């Protein structure tokens, strides 16, 4: 069986879903979305690829090792927490600031978004790792070059 229609449409979905997940991630602070949802959406984009092609290909679309993703995510999350301590504030105290950028208008810069990006990375890493391990049934290492 060669699911041609599925494969063709899934290629397009990949970009749409990923883009949409970034959108959800960035806007999460003010509207429905956020790191967790966005991470899951990226993961489901990966799952879709795994369904249409195979898990190894799907996880190779995220060209970063899953352990690195998880570690980096946790580091970002903890880092924002520690960073607020460096300014003499309690752990995980967030700051936000409204600023004006050309073309984009008034933009809010919040340290909470950095934390959310950490959450996003962890979720993507966990999803990638789990899908790859469960689908291939072995400790596959994927990453750049594989």
């Amino acid at each position, binding site marked *: *069986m060669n*699911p041609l229609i599925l494969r063709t449409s899934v290629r397009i979905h990949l970009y749409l879903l990923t883009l949409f997940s970034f959108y*959800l991630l960035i806007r*999460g*602070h*003010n*509207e*429905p*979305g*956020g*790191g*967790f*949802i966005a991470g*899951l*959406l990226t*993961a*489901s984009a990966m*799952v879709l690829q*795994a*369904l*249409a*092609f*195979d*898990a*190894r*290909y799907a996880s190779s679309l995220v060209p970063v090792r*899953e352990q690195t993703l*998880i570690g980096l*995510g*946790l580091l970002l*999350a*903890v880092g924002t*927490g520690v960073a607020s301590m460096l300014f003499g504030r309690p752990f*995980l105290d*967030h*700051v*936000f600031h409204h600023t004006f950028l050309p073309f984009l208008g008034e933009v*809010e810069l*919040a340290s*909470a978004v950095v*934390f*959310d990006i*950490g*959450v996003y990375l*962890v*979720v993507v*890493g*966990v*999803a990638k*790792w*789990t*899908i790859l*391990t*469960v*689908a*291939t*049934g*072995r*400790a*596959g290492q994927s990453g750049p070059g594989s």
Partner: protein
Amino acid sequence: MSSLFASVMLPFILAPWVPALYRKAGRRVGFLVAVVPVSLFVYYLGFLGELGSEPVGFRLPWIPLLGVDLSFALDGFGLLFALLITGIGSLVVIYSTYYLGPREDLGKFYLYILIFMGAMLGVVTADNIVLLYIFWEITSVASFLLIGFWHTREESRWGALKAMMITVLGGFGILTAAVLLYVVGGSFELSALMENREAVLASPLYVPIVLLLLLGAFTKSAQAPFHIWLPGAMAAPTPVSAYLHSATMVKAGIFLVGRMAPLLGGTPLWYYTVSAVGAVTVFLGAFLAIRQTDLKALLAYSTVSQLGLIMPMFAAGTEVAALAGAAHILNHATFKGALFMLVGIIDHETHTRDLRRLGGLYKAMPVTAVLTGIAALSMAGVWPLNGFVSKELIFEAMLHPPFGPDVWTQAFAVLAVLGSAMTTIYCLILAHRINFGKPRYGDAEHPHDPPAGMLLGPVLLVGLVVLLGVYPYIAEGPIFNAAASGHMREEVHGHVHNVPVPGMPLAMSLIALGLGLWGYRHLESVRRAFDQVRPRVHANAVYDGILAGLDRLSRWMVRVHMTGLLRDYIAYILLVVFLGIGLAAAASGAAFDLRLDLAPMTFVEAVVIALIIAGAIAVAAFRHRLAAIVALSIVGLMVSFLYVQLRAPDLALTQLMVESISTVLILLAVRYLPPLPKEQDTARRKAADIALAAGAGALVAFLALMTNANRLFPSISQYFVENSKPLGGGSNIVNVILVDFRGVDTMGEITVLGIAALSVYALVTLRQRTRGRAERPVDDPPVAFDDPRSAARDAREGEMP
């Protein structure tokens, strides 16, 4: 004094870089690492003569809610220890560069050493009991790692474990005592507790506090019957034995007694407990030392014995005792540290530590032999070496007990003299037997004195042994009296003397020396006589018994509840929830006021809920895995739809995502499962399962309705609604709660998520390794969903059995 804080933290900060440094610098890393203890030593030297009973302090709030601050205080007592830790530390670091072979992982070694150094400095400068406890436990961990440094050896692992078990047991004693002290005295800060001394002494908790705290001190300082870990710790590399297990860490118990004495001391309970344990330890340690044939084991038991001699000095509360204790801490560190390093050199040169195979070393390695002789004679208390000076003081202190002489104190003194006599015997073994007589060089043909760098430590320490023996007055004011003042919390102006003064103490010294000399002349018969002693109760057997018992207990517990069946585990969890919450709710006696003023249910909601119920029943009823999975995802989808209906878009989105991904994952995992087995459950088991499930469901429903009907506190939702924008800077309340208000929770959750992924990985890898290729050909091309073979397999496995 923030420099004090920095000095404690410095080893911790530098420690993680040592392995990297080792990769760059190679074997010379020891000399680079030595910069740390040397500069800290110089730093602490700067306090000499300035510190007495008045400490310099530093405090940084840490966990103010629990009353735990990073508060440090350095007085003369702590300074003595700090100088030992950094001074002997410097010598040991340099010595071990020569001692450890080229193939040893020096990076790891110095990493542990630095961590130990920082922790030990923390112990002696902490002004907060909880902080002290934390550092205390870090020293135990560092000691564990260092004893187990040669971890491929059975005896190293065994010794490391034993030391850890016993010292950590004592650590719990300290923690418990700290909590009790907080209850009684209202603070963890030592300086604050001192002001509340009356309240502590009058409290009914005084006795348990003292006993628990002393448990910590006795285990750490290897007092009988907890002395058994110290000989086991000799499996460590010799520099570690010299540093941790003779000069510094084992004196932490003594430090604790000395530090807490102004608060808890001054009572007969305190004095007699410590003195009795100390006296028994002096005797037992010396007795066991003579029976040893391994030089390091001999030194270990001798350390046990000497620690028993020092410990009671800090429980007496008299000036002369405090002075004697302070002096003997320094003196013991000098001669015992030197002896350990020298035994290490002998071992290094002759490849044996068995004293039956050693003799006439003076001819082969004269410098080592002379140094060994001087250090050993000092330990025996021979004039004019420093051991004589402090031993005189100790005997004098024992003759002037704080509550007047009685039968007990006389017994302590007799035990001390007998112990000293036996000390003389084994010191003569070290000084005479292995150095003179027929040459026996172990496995070596021509042993010789080691390079100068290796001798540096012993030479300096033995130099101190002689200096402090000939002219102890140099240390009298700035070290001995300062340390005694710090311990007593009032200025002490005692005097040391190295001129033999006729009197009772001198007589005791002479009796000990004479008896010892006689015993050494008849060493073989003494040994034979000692070997006849076979007590019925061995502390080691008790330890082994307890360990084996614990092992059996945990084995039994695992066997009983780890059935390997998922359904059993779920049943346990539900049962605990049901019983725990149900009983608590019933016992609370709250009025069950079920006002069902709930919002009306719309038609759509009713349909959705009906579908959820139907789906849930279907999951349980279907005997076909794929069908059950589909039913399960119906439940999930309907729940997300319900969220949409209740206008919770974030929840709905998340639920939707989780549903789709987990369904795929479950589908993937199903391939690994064996076909569903035939129905085997008895009707009883089935009924029990149904009852449990129904009960748990009813409980949750009941709880939800109850909480809705009885609000004890105003809901926090309003706070979130109001403050989400001004405080969190976002208008999506759910997200602001996740990343800001409850950010720490989220951090914990993503950590758990990462660990879960790690577990999945580990499980799958493990399965692959244990079952090999037989179960499922892993060399298949990565299984795709369109792979006809896997599809066929799915179909096969999905079939009804």
